[in-house]
């Protein structure tokens, strides 16, 4: 699962740590936190390359001047909603569950959830592929064996990794043996 990269730009420790506290409860995201510094801001944002920015009115105005507000997805925080922001957190009044549901809403409306694959078990083709991967065949060798293109093999492998959440070849080998897809003697 690829996590959604969130960047909080805020100088207030109290607000940042409060936000982080809440973000910790949302499994789909990973976040960083930086302070607002006009000189470096655009650089910083480029460096983190976030998919979602959480900023206050001040940063919002700055980004607007720099014409950055159209390219980034934003959640704006503040004590009153002056500009009609699509996603707004009121730091004075919103309670925890309001904030969490707002962030969740923002996520569901803008990101499809890669975790929700209907069928988590492998298809028979995928089982076949994992068998060859586990034994140590290269993508090309698997392609030749199954009369499919190398790119199809790569796509299958991506799907396998997403379904099982196993990232290394030796991890896949363990999976294959535990599930009797291959015999332990098949691997040296």
């Amino acid at each position, binding site marked *: 699962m690829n996590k959604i990269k969130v960047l909080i730009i805020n100088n207030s420790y109290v607000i940042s*740590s409060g936000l*982080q506290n809440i973000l910790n409860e949302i499994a789909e995201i990973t976040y960083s*936190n930086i302070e607002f510094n006009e000189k470096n801001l655009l650089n910083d944002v480029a460096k983190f390359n976030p998919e979602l920015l959480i900023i206050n009115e001040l940063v919002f105005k700055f980004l607007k001047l720099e014409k950055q507000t159209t390219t980034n997805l934003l959640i704006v925080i503040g004590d009153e909603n002056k500009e009609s922001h699509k996603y707004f957190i009121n730091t004075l009044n919103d309670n925890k569950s309001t904030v969490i549901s707002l962030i969740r809403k923002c996520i569901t409306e803008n990101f499809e959830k890669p975790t929700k694959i209907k069928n988590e078990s492998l298809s028979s083709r995928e089982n076949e592929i994992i068998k060859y991967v586990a034994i140590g065949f290269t993508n090309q060798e698997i392609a030749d064996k199954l009369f499919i293109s190398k790119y199809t093999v790569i796509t299958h492998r991506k799907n396998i990794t997403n379904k*099982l*959440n*196993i*990232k*290394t070849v*030796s*991890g896949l*080998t*363990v*999976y294959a*043996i*535990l*599930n009797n897809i291959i015999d*332990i003697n098949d691997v040296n």
Partner: protein
Amino acid sequence: MIITKDYKMGDAILHDPKILTVLTRFNVKLGFGDETIEQICVKNNINVDFFLELANTFHDENYFTENKLKSFSLQLIVSYLINSHKIYVGNKIPEIEELINTLKYDNEQDAKNIIVLKKFFSGYKDELINHIKHEELNVYPYILELEIGLKNKKVSETFFERMLVYSASDYRDEHSDVELKLFDLKNIIIKYLPPPINFEKCNVILNKLFKLDEDLKNHSKLEERILVPNAIKIEAELKKLKSENKIDFI
């Protein structure tokens, strides 16, 4: 909570056992009585500020003040990193290995699960050891030499040449992710390993894996965000000194 030097060491550890993890890197024995962190550090010849920075980093994942940490000598940081390596290889890994060896199934057929798990873990261990060896044989000595070179304003010609070819930024770029296999192992135990008869051991293993993972992440953070930027800074300074002819070549 931010840990400060006048806290009692014992209380700090009771409050957060992760501080104990940091202490073990400095070879400090238990039995603190009522002594403060400062007293214990002085007694054991530990830089108090350095200890506090590390303790706070372990204690709170949002506490990582790069600027403060960057002010310590590279020698200090490297010796801490080497001590951590020793503990990974000498304690953490063998502990987990031993636990995996104790897993038991009541039928022949499932016995293969342990063999394959062991194999996977030993693959992980080899990867980690290679990673550590590379750092201790190549990277750290290079970085320490940088620091000494700047201090004495004196470097050897071959070292300077080497610096132009291999920079600390290359190390960062190729700094391999030793956590991938660890991630897979956790995942496999949680989701795919058929429970052995002494399945409670699996929970112990998992807990240790999570702790090791967190520990390694802090370790990499020190390497990538403190050691490397400091080294790059020194490289630039040495080049500048050379262009101004203010450095001796030996």
